């Protein structure tokens, strides 16, 4: 077992009054990216709702094909992963690196579970003859959840790479920044799903 690395860089800390309050407030580029990403999904929600209002029967028929239980399971998986991720950042900031790494691994594992459930839903839909061209509802279903799944997989890759670097002792200031930006991004993916799930599965 190798030496557990310290995440907090002392030189970086010297430039801050409170190591527990090192925010990302100066990273305007990252915040702009987060806002732009949320805007993209807001536009998709708007377009979906607009088209649904003109063809409610078609959308309701499509919605009835979805397995609500699987969507619910994925919602619970995602909120649990966010809890683990927030706890991981907290532990890392407090130099509890070993615990933080376990929580990061748990976050990534739940991300993989989410992806597995989502892909199984795709398989179920495709096997029952519903494709992206079957109806407007399924076009939106595959596009919105597909883009969201892509976001989640990027999050998994970021979390795994940062976790691995910290595990092997690489602890540059950039790793801390990437971890914290990755955490915010992960929570954004969770936040977006909070609307996608009821909009596609529940709202009638």
């Amino acid at each position, binding site marked *: 077992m190798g030496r557990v690395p310290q995440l907090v860089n002392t030189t970086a800390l010297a430039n801050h009054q409170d190591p*527990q309050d090192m925010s990302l407030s100066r990273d305007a580029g990252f915040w702009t990216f987060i806002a732009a990403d949320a805007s993209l999904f807001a536009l998709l*929600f708007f377009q979906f*709702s607009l088209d649904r209002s003109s063809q409610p029967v078609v959308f309701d028929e499509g919605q009835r094909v979805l397995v*609500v239980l699987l969507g619910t399971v994925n919602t619970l998986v995602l*909120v649990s992963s966010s*809890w683990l991720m927030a706890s991981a950042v907290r532990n890392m900031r407090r130099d509890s690196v070993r615990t933080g790494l376990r929580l990061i691994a748990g976050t990534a594992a739940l991300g993989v579970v989410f992806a597995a459930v989502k892909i199984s839903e795709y398989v179920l839909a495709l096997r029952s003859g519903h494709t992206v061209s079957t109806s407007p509802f399924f076009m939106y279903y595959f596009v919105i959840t597909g883009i969201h799944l892509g976001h989640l997989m990027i999050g998994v890759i970021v979390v795994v790479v940062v976790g691995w670097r910290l595990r092997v002792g690489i602890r540059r200031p950039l790793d801390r920044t990437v971890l914290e930006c990755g955490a915010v991004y992960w929570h954004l993916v969770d*936040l977006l799903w*909070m609307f996608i799930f009821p909009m596609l*599965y529940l709202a009638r």
Partner: protein
Amino acid sequence: MLQTPKALRRAWVGLVAITVLSLAVAEFSGIAAGVETAVVIAAAAVKGRIILVRYMGERSFPPWLRVYFGGWLVVCAIVIIGFHFS
């Protein structure tokens, strides 16, 4: 500002509880479709608020981003609910 472990856990409990309640309203309550939609989307906005404040660390956001996400939650909820009633 860091959230305490207790605050993070309570946020998770709240998110799970609201998710289960939303499912119950949508699948088993038998209320009118429009009302059901309003309830589950409003619940989504509340869950979004919890994630923003407890997990994303909204307090550390720059002011413009706090305003943006506050508006984003409201606008998304109003758009989805509004078109359902249109």
